[in-house]
């Protein structure tokens, strides 16, 4: 009886030369096997976001520097400010990314574009100091690059890494509550991320939280 099993097993092994046996996850366990390569990108990135977005990224942004403080730090030089408060994207000449928060008055807004924007005065001089990206289309990768735990070398290639940035942008812009009607003249409180290649670059802030004073 035992030898019969051995022979059966041997026969099965011989019949499948070079085949890789992939175990199917039991149904209902929710641990479906994610395929390698590009086919599995969406599932892999969704899993990564589930694990890191609320647990790590949002707390990191919550610890943001106030906009005025960041501006003072930048006056001492971008690299010094970046080393103290920011995270550098991957590669030579990559931008420094900062988490930033603040409060200010909207001096100009474009809410008809798919890439909605509000220009905000945070120091009370009546001129815009930064632009808030309000989605649904978000430009750039600062949400990804602000986080030291998302590293290019951990991803298959630039496509998978780019998909992470897009997924983060989509997650943030979907959660953002932008009120109907004109924003100009209203006071907003925000937090988000900004990427800078030079200390004098205009600030394009990807908003993660936004509240508008009534």
């Amino acid at each position, binding site marked *: 009886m035992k030898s019969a099993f051995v022979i059966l097993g041997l026969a099965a092994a011989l019949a499948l030369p070079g085949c890789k046996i992939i175990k199917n996850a039991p149904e209902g366990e929710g641990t479906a096997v994610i395929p390698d390569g590009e086919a599995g990108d969406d599932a892999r990135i969704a899993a990564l976001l589930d694990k890191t977005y609320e647990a790590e990224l949002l707390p990191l942004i919550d610890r943001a520097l106030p906009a005025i403080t960041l501006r003072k730090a930048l006056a001492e030089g971008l690299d010094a400010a970046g080393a103290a408060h920011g995270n550098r*994207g*991957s*590669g*030579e*000449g*990559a*931008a420094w990314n900062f988490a930033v928060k603040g409060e200010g008055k909207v001096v100009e807004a474009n809410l008809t*574009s*798919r890439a909605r924007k509000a220009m905000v005065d945070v120091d009370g001089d009546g001129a815009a100091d930064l632009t808030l990206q309000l989605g*649904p*289309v978000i*430009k750039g*990768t600062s949400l990804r690059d602000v986080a030291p735990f998302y*590293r*290019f*070398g951990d991803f*298959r*290639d*630039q*496509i998978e*890494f*780019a998909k992470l940035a*897009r997924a983060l942008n989509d997650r943030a812009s979907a959660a953002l509550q932008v009120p109907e009607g004109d924003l100009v003249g209203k006071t907003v409180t925000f937090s988000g991320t900004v990427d800078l290649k030079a200390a004098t670059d205009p600030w394009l802030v990807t908003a993660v939280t936004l509240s508008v004073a009534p």
Partner: protein
Amino acid sequence: MILNRRLFVGSLTAAVSGILPTLSLAQGKGTIAIITPSHDNPFFKAEADGAAAKVAELGYEAMVLVHDDDANKQNELFDTVIAAGVKAIILDNAGADASVAAVQKAKDAGIPSFLIDREITATGVAVSQIVSNNYQGAQLGAEEFVRLMGEAGDYAELVGKESDTNAGIRSKGYADVISQYPDLKSVARQTANWSQTEAYTVMESMLQANPSIKGVISGNDTMAMGAWAALEAAGRTDVIVVGFDGSNDVRDSILKDGIKATVLQPAYAQAQMAVEQADKYLATGSTGLEEKQLMDCVLVNKDNAAKLETFALTA
């Protein structure tokens, strides 16, 4: 110029060897191979020139070779440079999957490879992969295209050569941005194989079939030049064209209100960086950097086109 200098140094050393010890010493640092796609495309020429200039500056000899995007030819070139005993290889590879074996072969022979422009699908085989962030560059180009189009209208896309990884990456980067604007409608999408003449023909037929076209986004600058020529010939200079690479031809067109924008890949600087990393690795056994390094692309439009020269922006 670079070639001349190399020959000059070589013949001088041969003629007066021993009299000029510094030159002999320089020769002693050995040869670095520079392998890229064909120099017919000025982008790859800039890459090879940048690398060769840095190789000479750091006291090595350069061996410049082209694989013509043929993985088999690349494999043979690797055999050649391994047999020649080069110290290091600077490579813009001929295929993300197909190149892994060649780079591994060099590694097994004790020769480190430093990749530029395109990445391969394995890590731990090359010492450095300095990857042009084509996806980010394509997003920049597409964002500018969307802005120029006023977020609406019919558009066409010219796609690069299928076998080149970057053709697909750029097309995906374009789609990633443009697909978020429902009023932008793709009416035609076709390859022109990176070729200017092919792009001219493809653009002609696209225009005939879709006279409503308001914009064309192209996978590289040579195809953008071909498309623009066809649009000019058809009296359709109202069509918005955006390219990719940052060539001098497109720069000149931008300055003459022809093509509207392109995206610069810093080819020259990137190749020089790879040689610097090779030099550091050969001297110390480490580059001090991560293997995979992304290098961002830069949008070029009327605001900064005048500063563009041979795939580099001057300050």
